[in-house]
């Protein structure tokens, strides 16, 4: 099976726009919300969402941050080499905030679990929600479900979903690879 394109660049943009309007439906002008991208690849979705939100809302007042979950992973000793960390950049108080964790692909839910744990080290938000560009449903290892979903994809464990970003990969695209290819 050839790699399958799940979202092309037009659909990609539409999806991002829709996610932004969904956020506004729930959070008004986002004055009490904080959008936090999970390292390493959730930060690209966050940056895109932030850009579109600013345009729609007409103000720059959106709290955003980056969260690295490397040291909170539960599989450190299952790899040949321990994973390398990225940076965490959270310079505001989470107390009373409505946090939206932002990641590109939701698969087993283990990254989100680690993200929740890492997040709670910074304070006690009022509420935490989860946004993902791609939800690989039926493959969860933990009872974690997203609140904002770009696209559902039904996959088997050996397949791989890659979200490509114009900023780093040259184009906006979501691709599904079968187990044989890279």
């Amino acid at each position, binding site marked *: 099976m050839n790699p399958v394109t799940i979202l092309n660049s037009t659909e990609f943009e539409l999806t991002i726009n829709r996610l932004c309007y969904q956020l506004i439906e729930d959070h008004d002008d986002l004055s009490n919300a904080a959008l936090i991208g999970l390292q390493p690849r959730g930060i690209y979705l966050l940056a895109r969402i932030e850009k579109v939100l600013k345009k729609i809302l007409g103000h720059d007042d959106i709290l955003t941050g980056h969260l690295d979950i490397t*040291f*909170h992973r*539960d599989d450190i*000793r299952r790899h040949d080499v321990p994973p*390398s*960390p990225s940076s965490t950049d959270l310079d505001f108080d989470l107390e009373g905030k409505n946090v939206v964790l932002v990641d590109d692909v939701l698969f087993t839910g283990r990254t989100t679990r680690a993200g929740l744990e890492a997040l709670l080290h910074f304070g006690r938000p009022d509420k935490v929600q989860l946004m993902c560009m791609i939800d690989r449903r039926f493959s969860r290892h933990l009872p974690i479900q997203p609140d904002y979903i770009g696209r559902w994809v039904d996959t088997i464990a050996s397949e791989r979903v890659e979200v490509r970003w114009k900023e780093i990969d040259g184009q906006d695209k979501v691709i599904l690879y079968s187990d044989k290819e890279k």
Partner: protein
Amino acid sequence: MSGLSVDHLLGIKDLKASDIELIFSTADGFKEVINRPIRKVPSLRDTTVANLFFENSTRTKLSFELAEKRLSADVLNFSSSGSSVKKGETLVDTVNNILAMKVDMVVMRHPDPGAAVFLARNVKAKVINAGDGTHEHPTQALLDAYSIRERLGSVKGKKVLIVGDIMHSRVALSNIHCLKKLGAQVMLCGPTTLIPKHIESLGVKVETDLLKALKWCDVVNMLRIQLERQKGGQEQFNLFPSLREYTMLFGLNKEVLDRVGKEIVIMHPGPINRGVEISSEVADGANSIILDQVENGVAVRMAVLYLLAGRQ
């Protein structure tokens, strides 16, 4: 992505420059962690670490223990005073008994050079050398270089002066290896009796005039005079006439620094003998990064523990 090229941290000599860079980039992450409101991550919660100290230590022992606790490891502490070592138990037996209690990693300080290498060959656990006699003290060298990198942006091309008792100093030897691997220039300064013969073969310069040496360097690392390692002990000095003379010729104080006429970063691995190798004014001054070294020590040791524990 690759991990460390070694299974144990026995000395800087065994590391590649890429290993040191990996430890530094990992330590950057941990430095952020130890400045969070909750300074703890669960990375090593399934790991047990034994700290075996066969020689006195304050800083290194506390720093390792804190690093282990910040990583959520279970920690066993052992010091040789008051233990069965005094009853004649061998090192391997002592450690194997501790390992029988299911310990994954051993951090060891020992008065004999090579003790860590010996241990790594004879026991089934990852070994971190926390100082073996006059041989190496790798984590100290790593945190020193990390602190230079933090203050000056990089280590490469920097001129680093190490002053004092080079002969008895494991810190000096580890520092020389570490700084050379990272591309720094290294100069040693001290009484000729405290500088080993042929040390130039490691690619370092030697200078006996402190003022000349200071004019050359960007960073100076002042070592402690190790009275306990000299044959005569506290009362007698076999290798230089008197502490007072040492202080006059090799002590770092404001007057000397004023004569140098440029900004130099001041380092000291501790414990400081105030008024001997360094004056209080200099040790506590704006260019001193002595306390940054202590803070960075925890982050660097967390990185070493994390990277070794994660290896299969």
